[in-house]
């Protein structure tokens, strides 16, 4: 027998390791070892990267940024136990589908704001209470966050919103009626407000 005959014992045929790797996220989830599960949700803007922890939706990223970079950042800031999981992200993907189809006005999926701190978190918590189809102002969310004069800081906080759409920072505009900025670009802000039937 030649040692070269041993080689064929170790073949990775018909994408076997790929199939096993694809099934692994469920194994990890069942073992309670999945800290960050991610997936992609369809949207009118393209595929949205969504990431969830045990606490809820922690990140929603518009297309444009490199996915690998985004995942590395999540690994560094949250936990390196990051796996693609259709099961862990199933609820948020379904709710986003319904929202874009016009069949959902309120997201039921819990949100995990652990990528934010302090004032930003308070501003996002206030923003989360703005109802579907209506708008509020930078000044009002600053006030609700406990700093009535910090509307510029509130704008910055909203610009760093890790979970746009679900925490509806698109519903925050200027007191004078100007649209202000948006983390995903102004066209997307307008598109979301139109989708909700808000006056733009």
């Amino acid at each position, binding site marked *: 027998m030649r040692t*070269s005959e*041993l080689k064929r014992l170790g073949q990775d045929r018909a994408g076997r*390791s790929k199939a096993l790797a694809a099934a692994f996220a469920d194994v990890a989830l069942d073992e309670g070892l999945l800290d960050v599960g*991610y997936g992609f949700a369809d949207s009118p803007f393209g595929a949205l990267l969504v990431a969830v922890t045990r606490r809820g939706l922690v990140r929603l990223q518009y297309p444009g940024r490199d996915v690998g970079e985004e995942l590395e950042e999540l690994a560094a800031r949250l936990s390196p136990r990051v796996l693609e999981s259709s099961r862990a992200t199933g609820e948020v993907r379904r709710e986003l589908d319904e929202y874009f189809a016009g069949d959902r006005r309120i997201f039921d999926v819990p949100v995990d704001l652990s990528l934010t701190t302090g004032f930003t978190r308070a501003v996002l918590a206030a923003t989360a209470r703005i109802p579907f189809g209506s708008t509020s102002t930078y000044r009002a969310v600053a006030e609700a966050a406990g700093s009535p004069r910090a509307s510029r800081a509130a704008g910055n906080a909203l610009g760093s919103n890790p979970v746009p759409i679900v925490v509806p920072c698109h519903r925050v505009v200027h007191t004078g009626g100007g649209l202000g900025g948006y983390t995903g670009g102004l066209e997307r802000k307008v598109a979301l407000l139109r989708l909700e039937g808000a006056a733009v």
Partner: protein
Amino acid sequence: MKHGSATSRTRPPFQAFLEEHRSIVYRFLRASVGGERADDAFQETFLAALRAYPSLEDGRNLRGWVLTIATRKAIDAGRAGRRRALTVPDVAAVGDANGQVGGESEVFDADDPVWRAVASLPPRQRAAIVHRYVLDRSYAEIAGAMASTEAAARANVHQGLRKLKEVVRHEDE
């Protein structure tokens, strides 16, 4: 954001780690424990890796690290499965070879004389042989994977090889 001390512990998202090493881990296990048990051993290997991943101190040689875990799983599985492999009925395997098609996921190892010879080896020799001749790894790397010395790794390979040749010769008679 955590900085400073965190930099030495920076490691890729587990998904990237899994994608990068899944094939070599599967190939190692497939050759070490056989097609029937390789799937379970694969998931066990990556579960053990996932469990330890956040606290892993040195992330520089992740491939070596995961193959060390796989080696431990293979040796454990080998100890449990060796008896069974040895009691596989001695069928004439040659006649079946041309009728063997499809069945991508299930490979009938029991009919493969080379696999039967490998399966008859003690688990440590078997693992060493697979590292050396299936994955082409160096003795230093094998020693690392088996938590032994280079000399011991060399001895495992040589003893395994001798036994392998005896078994095959015996079957040919």
